Every structure is written in C-alpha cells, then in structure tokens.
C-alpha cells in the first residue's frame, strides 16, 4: 500500500501544480491578493507530496520490494545499502523523479528566501515554476511511472549497472540535477518579468543570486562527473567529449555567460535582451540535455521509434518551453530596448566579449553533438564527432576568453581609456612575458604547456594584483569581488591542470610478470601478482603493485578486476593521488603463467582540474551571498 501512497502523492502533486498555475494567476490578474498569496502554500504542499513520493520509492529500494518493476529492474538483495539508495536515480524513471524532486526543492527554497522580493514578482515566478513542474509530472506519471507494479514479483531483482555501483552515483547526479534544474529559477524570473511587462531593476537583482547558486551546483556536478569518470572507467581520462557530457556542458557555458551578463544588467541596466535570451537558452539547453540523455536519443536515434509516447512528449514539451518563451520575448521586446550606453573600451565590452565567446563555444559543442544525430535521422550515414573536432574548435575560442577575463576587471564601467589601462598594467604584462619565457627555457619546451603556463601566470598575476590593490585602497571587500577572484583563479588552475595532464601525462599498456618492474616518469612499478577477491555482489581479482621512487616506497596499489552477477567485467583502478601527480594503475586481462596486462598512467597536475572546478563553484557561492542580496526594504 505504501507504494500506492507514493504513486497517489505524485498524482496529488500534479493536481496541486494545476492549482498553482490557475489560482494565483486569477489572483494576480483580478487583483485578489488572497488568491495570489496562495502560491507559496501551494508550493509547500506540492513539495511535501513530491518528497513523500521520492522517499517512498527509496524505501521500496531499501526494503527490496520487487513488486515494484523499477526496483526489480535496478536492484537486488545483494546490493550494498548505499547503492540501493542511489539506485533510486540509477535509471530513467527514478532520475525523472529526482528531477521533479529537485525542482520542488528549488521552488520551495525560492518561496522561503523571498522576503525581500515583491509579492507580485515572486507569486508570478512560482506560477511559472508550477507550470514547469506540471509538465514534468505529466511526463513522469503518464510515460515513466516509477511506481509501476509487477503482477508477479520476482524473488530477486536484477543487477544495477556495475558502472553505477559507486559512490559517484550517490553524489554526481543529485549535484548535476541541482544545477540543471536550478536554471529553471532564472528562467522563471525572466518569464514572470516578461509576463508582467516589468523588466526593471528588481527582477535582475533577484535573478542573479539564484543563477549563481545553480551555476555553482552545475559546476560541482560536472566536476564530480569528470572525477568519477576518471577513476571509474579505468582509462585515466577526465573528459571524453561524450554527447552525455556535452549535454551538461552546454547549459554550463550558457549559465556562465548568464551570470556575467546579469552583472552588467544589474550594474548598468544594459544587455537586458541578451540576459533574457541567455536565461531562456540556459534552461532550454538543460531541458534538451536531460531529455537527450533520458530519452536514449544519444545512444540511438531510433529510441524515438521504440518508445514513441516518450519521444513525442519530449518534443512537445521542448517545443512548448522554447517556443512559448520566445513568443513571450518577441511580444515584450519593445520593453527590452532601453539600455544605458557604453563606449568601446569599457567593462561592459569585456563582458560582451566574454558572452560572445561562451555562446560561440556552446554552439560549436551543440553542432558537434547534434550533427551525427541529424545525419543518422535523415539516413545520410553514420559519423562520429570526437575529441579532435572539439579540441580544434573549442580551445581556440576559449583562449581569448581567458586572456580577457584577466584584463577587464581593471577596466572601468561605461568608459575607459587604453592609455590608463596600459599604464596601470604595463609592469604586470612585462612580468608575465618574462615568467612565461623563463618557464619555456627552464621548465618545458612543449608549446601547449608553455601557452598554458603563460595563461596561468597571466590570470594569476592580474587577479592577485587586483586583489592587493583593492586591499591597499582600504575599500571594503565585497563577497562578490572575492567570488570573482576565486572563480577566475579557478579558471587558471583548471587550464594549467588540464593542459599539463593532457600533454605531459604518460600511459603504458604492458604485460607484467610476477616480480617484473616497469619504470615510468622516474617511478618503478613492481608487479607482485594477483589474487582472487570477492564481496557480496561480485567476485574477481585484486592486483598488488608496489611503487618506488629512488628506491623509496611511495605507494602500494591494488587495482581490481570485478565480475558482477550479470557477468559484466569491471575495471577498478587504483590511484595514488597527490597535488602534483597521480599514479594510476588498472588491471587488464590475465595472460597465463601469472602474467597480466596492466595499464599504468602518470598524470601530472590532474587534481588541478577538479580543484579549479571547485574554486569556480565556491567563487559563485561567495558572489551569491553578497550583502546586496540581503537588502532591507521599508515600504
């Protein structure tokens, strides 16, 4: 019966979402405050029932209730407790329920932290969020019901995909969804401003902190995904330009542009049109990404044909969201014309360059991701667009962006002069050129690494000098400023880590006999053999490798080869991490006579990639708690 209660809770939340769309709207347009103010209680009621449904499904997983088809398909009695709980979002139906649950969390958060926002704006925003929630609940209940029962429950459930049996599943999807779904909040603010026809200072002010927080979560989600892929897949890679990764990266690029564009709109009242389009684009891309992944279109374009109901619904929903928003945008475009002027050399121009580069980069990724799907759908052949295309197109677009992000914080709003900026920064530029030259002479002759080192020095130098100058001027440091410093440093750290690990990383795929030694980057890897190993839900082998550097033992590595109940083999890499390098070993196949194929990787500065990501996310959080967003208003 508990399952039926969970199912009914979802139905009830669907009906409440209808009330949320209709009742406060009547209140807003007929000026009946009591009805308009009902938006918040309706959001809380809806959030409560969705949370109940989510935890009912989780309890079904924890109690091995295989009468629920979704549980029987994705869990079994042997699965460890953590993986049972995270298996809730391990497949399509549950991950959509997580989507709806996260959306309800965000909506409740907006309704609670809205005391400083005008009632009309917040009620209208909650109505828009209710409409998004309605679309997803319909999709969930009518095409992807996670509470579907089995007439004949099996005694044992199936195996959760072994790749997902990892701590990463517990943290990566929820974080990513917090980011994806969080983009619904700026979208809802923008749409409510367009509906009300009030594109004033207020909506811009209150859109930015929500955009920053969701951007922060999206950054953490993508960073965690990259870290998970690195240690779980056994290839030592941290980014594969896989369509699923791209689906999360595209909204991130647009969200990055949005938070910068919002800062101009907030400070100068400029870029309003652009900001509105970015908010719509960010959420539309997050929807596109979610549905591309969830509908199975990315693995096969024929997924639409195998499940026409789901595919058709996806297309209709995307059409309504994107089409509806753009119609609204066109209708209100006259209100968006007002913009305060700025000269060619101004901070606004810098942020515009940043926006153009980010959107161009997003379009290049979108093209590379969708092009093979379009060709396949039109029966024009099958092609694969991989890393060579993305690296060739994406990197050159981003390099000017990294250069610009260091300079433009020095440039004044509205108007500045080249001579002032030049005089202000000439010593920094000389310093950067000198240090880059020295690194080329003394550290590396690799061109790509030299460029990355140059960019790192360029950004760090500018950012730190800016920070010191601000400290010296005795001006009060705002959280926004600290956030910017941290995020820009994060970009520099990421660029250096990504380039050095890609260019200077070493990989060896070798056969090793017991007692044999392989030397990589000054480290001696001694293979001590392999022994059988098993746990509750798998059996397999565990390797034993000792690593020495200058005859001193530095690590003991234990890579695993696992065979789960489905028979699917899994490689569990063993890593000795440090801030300067990772030593990474993965076990291949047994080759007889105690010999095994082994993959050994030396990954310099690989941790800087994720450190950079976390710094960016932390910077965004700092900016979101700036004192401007705690404004007290007296009527």
């Amino acid at each position, binding site marked *: 019966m508990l399952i039926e209660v969970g199912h009914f809770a979802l*139905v009830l939340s669907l009906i409440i979402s209808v009330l949320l769309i209709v009742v406060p709207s009547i209140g807003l347009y007929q000026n009946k*405050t009591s009805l308009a103010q009902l938006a918040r209680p309706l959001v809380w009621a809806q959030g409560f029932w969705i949370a109940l449904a989510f935890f009912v499904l989780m309890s079904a997983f924890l109690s091995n209730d295989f009468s629920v088809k979704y549980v029987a398909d994705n869990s079994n009695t042997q699965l460890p407790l953590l993986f049972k709980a995270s298996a809730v979002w391990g497949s399509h139906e549950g991950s959509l329920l997580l989507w709806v649950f996260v959306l309800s969390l965000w909506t409740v958060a907006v309704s609670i932290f809205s005391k400083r926002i005008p*009632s009309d704006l917040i009620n209208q925003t909650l109505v828009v969020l209710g409409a998004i929630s309605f679309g997803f609940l319909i999709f969930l209940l009518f095409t992807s019901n996670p509470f579907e029962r089995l007439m004949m429950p099996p005694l044992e459930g199936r195996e959760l995909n072994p790749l997902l049996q990892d701590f990463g599943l517990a943290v990566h999807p929820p974080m990513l969804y917090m980011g994806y779904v969080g983009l619904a909040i700026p979208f809802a603010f923008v749409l409510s401003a367009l509906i009300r026809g009030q594109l004033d200072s207020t909506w811009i002010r209150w859109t930015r902190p929500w955009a920053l927080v969701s951007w922060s979560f999206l950054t953490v989600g993508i960073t965690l995904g990259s870290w998970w892929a690195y240690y779980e897949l056994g290839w030592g890679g941290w980014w594969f330009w896989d369509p699923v990764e791209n689906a999360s990266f595209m909204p991130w690029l647009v969200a990055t542009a949005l938070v910068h564009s919002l800062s101009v709109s907030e400070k100068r009242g400029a870029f309003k049109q652009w900001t509105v389009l970015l908010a719509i684009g960010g959420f539309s891309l997050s929807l596109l990404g979610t549905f591309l992944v969830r509908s199975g279109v990315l693995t096969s374009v024929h997924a639409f044909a195998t499940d026409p109901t789901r595919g058709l619904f996806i297309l209709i929903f995307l059409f309504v969201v994107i089409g509806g928003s753009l119609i609204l945008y066109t209708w209100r475009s006259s209100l968006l014309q007002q913009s305060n002027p700025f000269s060619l050399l101004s901070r606004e121009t810098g942020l515009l360059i940043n926006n153009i580069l980010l959107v161009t980069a997003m379009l290049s990724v979108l093209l590379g991701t969708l092009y093979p799907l379009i060709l396949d759908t039109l029966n024009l052949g099958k092609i694969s667009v991989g890393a060579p295309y993305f690296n060739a197109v994406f990197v050159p677009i981003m390099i000017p962006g990294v250069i610009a992000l260091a300079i433009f914080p020095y440039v004044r709003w509205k108007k500045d002069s080249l001579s002032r900026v030049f005089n202000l920064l000439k010593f920094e530029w000389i310093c950067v050129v000198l240090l880059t030259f020295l690194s080329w002479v003394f550290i590396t002759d690799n061109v790509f690494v030299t460029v990355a080192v140059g960019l790192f020095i360029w950004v760090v130098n500018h950012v730190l000098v800016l920070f010191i100058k601000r400290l010296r001027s005795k001006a009060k440091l705002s959280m926004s400023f600290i956030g910017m410093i941290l995020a820009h440093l994060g970009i520099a750290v990421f660029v250096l880590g990504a380039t050095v690990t890609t260019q200077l990383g070493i990989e060896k795929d070798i056969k090793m006999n017991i007692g044999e030694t392989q030397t990589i980057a000054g480290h001696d890897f001694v293979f001590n053999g392999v022994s059988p190993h098993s746990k509750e839900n798998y059996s397999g082998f565990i390797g034993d490798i000792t690593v020495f550097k200058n005859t001193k033992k530095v690590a003991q590595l234990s890579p695993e080869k696992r065979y789960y109940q489905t028979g699917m083999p899994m490689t569990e890499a063993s890593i000795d991490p440090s801030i300067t390098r990772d030593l990474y070993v993965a076990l291949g196949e047994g080759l007889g006579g105690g010999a095994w194929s082994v993959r050994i990787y030396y990954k310099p500065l690989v941790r800087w990639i994720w450190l950079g990501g976390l710094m960016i996310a932390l910077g965004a959080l700092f900016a979101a708690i700036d004192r401007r967003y705690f404004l007290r208003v007296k009527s």
Partner: protein
Amino acid sequence: MILAWPFIIMISLSCSFIAWFLFRPISQSMSGDDSNIAINQQRQDELKLDIKQGLISDDQYQAAESEIISTLATELRIDTKESIAIKPLPWILIIVLICSVFSLGVYSQLAPKMIPSGNSLSEPMSMSDSIERLQIFLEENPDDFQALKMLGLAQIGIGNVEESIEAFEGAYLINSKDIDLLLQFASAIAASQDGQFGGKSKVLIDEALILDPQSIQVLYFSGIVAVHEGNLNGAIEFWEKALYLIPKDHPDRNIIEEALGTVLNLQVK
C-alpha cells in the same frame, strides 16, 4: 482500492492546508516600486562609497547618479489599485472538488488494476482465490503478459499442470524473450513429461541460454537438461560457470553445489 483511506487522508490534509491559507493569507512582502527604490538607493550608496574611496572621479559620479535617477524614473509605476477581497468558502469548495475528483480520477486511470497481495494491506489470498481473480482480470485484459505468467505459476502451484502450460503458452505468444517465463514454461512442460527436460522444454531453455548466457538460473536449468541428455561434462561446465558467477553467500549456491557434487560423484562411479 481507488477510495482507500490513506488517499482520503492525503486529500483532506492538502485541502485543509490550502484552506488555512485562504482564511489567513500570507501578508504581502512589498510592492515593486518599494523594491526598485531600495535597489537604486543602494546603488547610489555604493557610488558614494566609490567616490569616498577614490575609485571614481566626480564626473563619473555625476553621470552614474543621473543614470540611476533616470532608470528609477522609468521603473516607477505608482500602482494605486486596491486589492479585491474574496469569500474564502466558495474557493475552498472548488479546491476540495478539484483535488478530490481530479486526483482520484487521474489515479484511477494510472493505478494498476491489481496489486500483488504480498504488498497490500489486505489479507493474503488463497491460491484458488488468486486464480479466480486473475481469470476475471484476464477476461477484460486477455493480452496482459504478466497476468498470464502469474496465472501459469498459480496453476502449477496447485498442481494444474495442463492449465499452467496453457497460460504460459499464451504469455509466450505475447513475449517470447522473457527469461523467467521461458524457465517456468519449460519446468511446467517437464512436469507434464514426468520431470523429463526434453522436446519443447529443452528448446525453451536453449532459447533462454541464447538470450542470457550469464544468467545463473538459465545455467542451472541448462545443466539439468544436459544431465537428462547424459551429457555430464556439459552439466559440470554449466554449473561451474554458475558457481563462478554466483556470490559466495547467495542462498541458491548450495543447490548448485549439491547438484554439481552429485554429477561429479556419478562421473567417478
């Protein structure tokens, strides 16, 4: 099922919660004008701080200040419309009606026609009751794969082998790729052949083996078929593979080990 008491409680809770806020609405936070004035005032304060700290010149301050004032001027609306009071009771009745009728209506369309008894609040049904309910259900839904499979299982549970085969046959025509069905169907046919896994029974297990060569259950049954064909080495191979795949503390492990032990003994003799 549709009018179960938890649903009525859930609807009542929702309606009462919403009704409470219709009688005692949350007070309005502020107007748009108040908010715009406060934000632009804050911008002006920031400007004053900037000029005090020497970050901007007097000219820049003047230009920025006039920009703030003109922005605010375009934003103010001076909305004097009075809020219209409502009578909460009719709205509450509408909300109660919508909540109850639509939620139960939508649920009745989506809910399963039958719920497995082991997970329901009702008393467990006897096997013959289950068969009766399944037969009634199948009259309305003759193509329900799960119901046919369940009927086959229930029939064999009370010894009606022929009826069980008939039900499994029907399920097989709908979905011949379900491994569990293939194994149950093969077992039922074997039961009708004095426990011999030959003929169609063997064909079904071979089909299951092609569909999932890593399934422990399929490997176990394939071993049994091999024993019935006198292929002891084949049986040993299937069961050893099954033992390799099955976790050490799995409850079915003993059964396979026992079967393997018996065949190894036979081979020795």
